């Protein structure tokens, strides 16, 4: 120890390799933190059941869909993609709270003084968060598929999982960008509730947003596009009548995929730029 470390400039490949190694280690750390906090694990396990009961039994009687196909579609089937999105959304956003905790506990500082490109730290955080968000969403997906009478092919299932991963990443990146400058967990919750609930409600998850001034909000809401693809994937093989009802007011598949890819990319870049800009790793 204490012998001179090589003073040569690190080659680009080494730099990149290190960045990936560190990102993987940091993502793994997020995962371990999640598993070791029993209340978080219990929350993730119980949440799908609660939502399933709530949407399956609670909201059923007061729900009716427009159009003639109503008889063939249960309310749960209608809410299923939106509820899945909700679970993913909240899990993804709230994993980014750990940034605020990292700063408070001094952990972030020790990462910032490591010889790493800044994207590596961001990537670790985003991947870890996406992983945890998926772990929240998958049990509900399985529960829903088993009990709702929605039948999807293996291809559809695969596509749904891929899509959940992408949307999860998008939300984690968004949460990261918001949390990076926050000094308190309370402030983060306040902003999130102010932003997330309207975003989710106006995405078409709960009711079709087809007319009125809210239509404009739905158009600029990235979640509309996330939901559009999710809904379409579930009802790919449904009869035209059911499908039309399910996707009423939603943007097209191609547009939705493009918008989501672009928004996800931009959110990741924003997280990276913000992380590059501020370096103290302390309370502001």
């Amino acid at each position, binding site marked *: *120890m*204490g*012998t*001179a*470390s090589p*003073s040569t*400039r*690190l080659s680009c490949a*080494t*730099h990149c*390799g*290190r960045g990936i*190694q*560190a990102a*993987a*280690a*940091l993502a793994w*750390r997020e995962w*371990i*933190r999640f598993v*070791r*906090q029993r209340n978080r694990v219990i929350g993730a396990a119980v949440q799908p059941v609660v939502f399933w009961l709530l949407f399956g039994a609670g909201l059923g009687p007061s729900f009716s869909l427009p159009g003639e196909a109503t008889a063939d579609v249960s309310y749960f089937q209608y809410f299923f993609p939106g509820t899945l999105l909700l679970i993913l959304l909240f899990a993804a956003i709230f994993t980014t709270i750990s940034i605020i905790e990292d700063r*408070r*506990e*001094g*952990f972030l*500082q*020790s*990462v*910032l*003084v*490591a*010889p*790493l490109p800044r994207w590596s730290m961001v990537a670790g955080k985003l991947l870890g968060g996406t992983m945890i968000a998926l772990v929240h969403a998958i049990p509900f997906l399985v529960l829903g598929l088993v009990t709702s009478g929605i039948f999807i092919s293996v291809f559809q299932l695969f596509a749904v999982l891929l899509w959940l991963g992408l949307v999860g990443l998008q939300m984690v990146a968004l949460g990261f960008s918001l949390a990076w400058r926050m000094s308190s967990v309370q402030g983060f919750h306040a902003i999130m509730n102010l932003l997330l609930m309207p975003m989710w409600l106006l995405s078409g998850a709960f009711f079709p947003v087809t007319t009125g001034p809210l239509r404009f909000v739905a158009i600029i809401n990235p979640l509309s596009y996330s939901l559009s693809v999710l809904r379409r994937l579930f009802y790919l093989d449904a009869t035209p009548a059911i499908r039309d009802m399910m996707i009423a007011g939603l943007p097209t598949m191609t547009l939705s995929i493009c918008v989501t890819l672009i928004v996800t990319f931009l959110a990741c870049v924003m997280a990276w730029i913000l992380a590059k800009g501020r*370096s*103290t*790793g302390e309370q502001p």
Partner: protein
Amino acid sequence: MPSAIDIRDVSHSFASRRALYNVSVEIQPGERFAFVGPNGSGKTTLFRLISTLFPLSAGEIDICGDSVAATPSLVRQHLGVVFQSPCLDRFLTVRENIELEGSLFGLSGATCRSQTALLADRFGFTDRLSDLAAKLSGGMRRRVEIAKTLLHSPEVILLDEPTGPLDPSARRALWELLDCVRRQDGVTVVFTTHLLEEAEQADRVAILDEGRLIACDSPAALRSSLGSDILSVRPLDVAAATQSLHEAFGILPQSVDGSLRVTLSADRNALARYMQKPHPEVASLSVASPTLEDVFLDRTGRCFTPVEPLVKGASHGHR
């Protein structure tokens, strides 16, 4: 061999105030060096500039010959940084914490494992490797943090107020540990502190005040720069006491926190003559060899640890 840390003309400003003014310090390899100053003196700002957390706006800092501004990645490789706030992840075990650090510094799994075992053995926490970091005592946590920073064999260890939350015995243990690391590994140990008695342990001390470097030398040299002894007088009548001190020693006494102080030369005759006379204007007096506190006082005209009145109006000290 380049100096461990070479700080040249560094200034730093925050939005509303200037935190550092043209600070220049050169720290040699293997030195134990302390930055000491009261709260708000700029030492933490300087610490963050050295550890690459703040971007350098004016001046230059080189660590082991590499520039902080131009090649932060190389500098980070030279440095092991221990922060004031504990940086272990409390949900991870000690071993996981250390191995995570290894991944951040690009160590391979096998190297990391053998290094971890070695450090744990040396620092005496082999039996705690599988415990969660949250379960460790404050002293043990610091121990693990220092071991963790040694994982990538840094040439310089930087510590920000390392003994802050520790009790006296844990403090002593920490200093012994750092000393051992310095001797065995040849690592340069640089720390900040707001405690002068801690700074006394360093080979050299840089004293900062309000963003300015007011002294930089070994504690012994700083003390002896003040002369042999300091006479401190608590007056009953300030004007009369000031005058009698001026007459006896030929210099105007410094007034600090309600007492008058005169730095004595090696010649004790003046002191002997002063003591022989009755001094009704004086309540008490003391003679002591100078401390770093006196050095600070001499350079700034203020106490290092200002006397805060416990009860409003109880003290009329000059701040």
